[in-house]
C-alpha cells in the first residue's frame, strides 16, 4: 500500500483515510472472513455500553429510497466482553481501533472508557452522543451544547487517549455543538450520525420499524452530511472523520473537499461487503485524476472560501 493514502489523525495512524463506520461492521469478525482487516485505515467498532444490551425489537431495519432506517438499539455484549473477547481478536490485525462509546448516563460512558482504556489497540475513543435509537442517553447529550461539553470533559478526564465526539445531524446548528465539544477538550469530531426518520407499511398502517422511528443512512443523506462537514470545518481546525452515504472513492474525495480528514463507510458495507477495500483500491486513480500526489494534500484545501 502506497504512502500516498496515509493519513495521521490523533491516536489513529492510518494507512489510508477509510474506516468502516461504527455499527456497520460489528467488531470485525465477520468481515475478517472476507478480507484482511489490516488493509483498512482504521476500524470504528460497534457502540459499546457499560453492560450488555439486547437492543430493540424487530424489524430493526427498513429500506428507503437510496437509504435505510435502522433501529438496532445499541445491541452489544458490554464493555468487559468487548475488552476481553473482541479487542484481543482484533489485535492480530495491523489496524488502529476507534472504540465507540455509548451509554445512558455520564457515569456509564466513563465506565466504558475506563474498561477499554488499557486495550493497546484502541487508538482513540469515539463518543456516541448521537444514537437516535435508545430511550435515554445518546442523542440527548448530542443536541444540547452544554450537555455535550459536560460529557466530553468527563471523558477527557478519564483517558489520555484522543477523544472524538460523534455529532448528531438532528440539530439546528451542528457547528455550535462542534465548538462546544472542542472547548471541552475533544481531539476530533465524527459526523454525521443518522437522521431520525420513519416509514409506514401501507397495508398494516403501522410503522415498519418495531421501534417506530430509526436512523436514516446511506446515499440519501450524503448531501446533508457534506453540508454539515463543510459547516463544521468553517468553525474548527479539529480533525473531522466524515461520513454519510459514502459508497465510492469519488464520494471520499467529495468529503475530503468538504473538509474531512478521513472518512467512515457505513451502509455501503451492507450493499457490498467489500465496499471499504474496493474504495481503498480505487482511491489512487482518483488522486491521479486530480493531479494530487497525497491524500493529505486534499485535506482542508479543497474548499476555497
Amino acid at each position, binding site marked *: 500500500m502506497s504512502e500516498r493514502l496515509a493519513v495521521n489523525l490523533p491516536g489513529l495512524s492510518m494507512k489510508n483515510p477509510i474506516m468502516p463506520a461504527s*455499527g*456497520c*461492521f*460489528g467488531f470485525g*469478525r*465477520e*468481515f475478517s*472472513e*472476507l478480507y484482511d482487516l489490516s488493509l483498512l485505515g482504521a476500524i470504528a467498532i*460497534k457502540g459499546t455500553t457499560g453492560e450488555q444490551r*439486547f*437492543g430493540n425489537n*424487530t*424489524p*430493526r*431495519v*427498513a*429500506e428507503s*429510497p*437510496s*437509504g*435505510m432506517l*435502522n433501529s*438496532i438499539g445499541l*445491541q452489544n455484549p458490554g464493555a468487559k466482553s468487548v475488552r476481553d473477547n473482541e479487542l484481543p481478536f482484533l489485535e492480530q490485525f495491523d489496524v488502529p481501533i476507534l472504540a465507540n462509546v455509548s451509554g445512558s448516563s455520564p457515569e456509564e460512558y466513563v465506565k466504558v472508557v475506563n474498561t477499554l482504556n488499557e486495550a493497546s489497540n484502541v487508538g482513540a475513543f469515539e463518543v456516541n452522543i448521537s444514537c437516535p435509537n435508545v430511550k435515554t442517553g445518546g442523542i440527548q447529550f448530542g443536541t444540547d451544547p452544554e450537555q455535550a461539553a459536560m460529557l466530553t470533559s468527563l471523558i477527557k478526564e478519564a483517558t489520555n487517549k484522543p477523544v472524538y465526539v460523534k455529532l448528531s445531524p438532528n440539530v439546528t446548528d451542528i457547528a455550535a455543538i462542534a465548538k462546544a465539544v472542542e472547548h471541552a477538550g475533544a481531539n476530533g469530531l465524527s459526523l454525521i450520525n443518522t437522521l431520525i426518520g420513519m416509514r409506514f407499511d401501507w397495508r398494516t398502517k403501522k410503522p*415498519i420499524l418495531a421501534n417506530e422511528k430509526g436512523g436514516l443512512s*446511506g*446515499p440519501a443523506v450524503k448531501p446533508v452530511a457534506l453540508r454539515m462537514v463543510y459547516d463544521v470545518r468553517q468553525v474548527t481546525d479539529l480533525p473531522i472523520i466524515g461520513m454519510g452515504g459514502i459508497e465510492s472513492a469519488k464520494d471520499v474525495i467529495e468529503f475530503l473537499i468538504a473538509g474531512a480528514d478521513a472518512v467512515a463507510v457505513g*451502509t*455501503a*458495507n*451492507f*450493499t*457490498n*461487503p*467489500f465496499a471499504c477495500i474496493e474504495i481503498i483500491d480505487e482511491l489512487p486513480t482518483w488522486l491521479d485524476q486530480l493531479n494530487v500526489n497525497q491524500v493529505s494534500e486534499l485535506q482542508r484545501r479543497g474548499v476555497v472560501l
Partner: protein
Amino acid sequence: MKSVPLKVVRNQEIAEETYEMILSGELVQEMNRPGTFLHIKIPSSHHVLRRPISIASVNQELGTCTLVYKCTGEGTRALTNVRPNDCLQVLGPLGGQGFPTEEPSTDQEVTLIGGGVGVPPMYFAARSLSERNIPFRVILGFQTEAAVFYEEAFKQLQAMDVTIMTDDGSYGEKGTVIDALQNLEQPSTYIYTCGPRGMLKAVKAAAQHDTTVYVSLEEHMGCGIGACFACVCKTEDETSYVKICTDGPVFQSNEVLL
C-alpha cells in the same frame, strides 16, 4: 461465502406475485444445504439493502440454482424485471444452520410444512430427504388457489403424501396447515417448517412432545453475515438472542422465542 455475479437463466411468474428464478454460475457448487439462502443485490442504485432469498433447489449437473420469491415490495418488484442473461450480484450461500436432513434415519419420518413463500426451502429439504430415502410427507398452506405452486414438484419426489390447504378453500382443503397437521394419524419424528411467524408458533404448539421441530425464520436483514444485529431473535428463555442470518436461519423450535 463469496459475492459474485450469477447469470439469470429464467425469471418467471409461477403463481400470483410469486416468481421462480434460475441462476447459473460457479457459486452454485457451494450450495448444498437446504434452508440456507442467498443475499441478492437489487439491480438498482435506489436499493441499498440486499434481499435474503432461500434456495429452493440446486442442479449441480447444470450448475444452476432455483429461487422462488414473492413480490412484496419495491425491491422484489425490481427483481421481477430482471431478464435472462442479466447478472445479479449474489452473496452466499448464507446461513450457519439449515435443515438437518442428514439427521433422520430411513425408519423415521419427516413432515415438511410450508406456508406461502415459506414453501421454497421445504422443497430443497424434500429433495435432500428424497435422495437419502427418508420417508416424508408434505403440508403446504396458501391463501388461495392462485397462490399455489410446486404441488406437482413435491409429488414427483415421491412424498408419502402432499396436502394442500387454502385459507379460502378454493383449492385443496379449506383450512390451515395446522388443521392438516392435527389430522395426521401418526406424528412424525421430525417436523421441518418455514412460513409466517404465527404459523411457526402454531406448528410448535401443535406438534407432539416427542416430535423434534425445526423452524426456518425470516426477518428484515441488513448485512446478512452477522455484523449488523438487524435480524436477531430472542432465545426461548429470553436471556440471550440468536442472529437469524448466521446462527440460523433454521433453529430447533425450543431454541428461539417465536
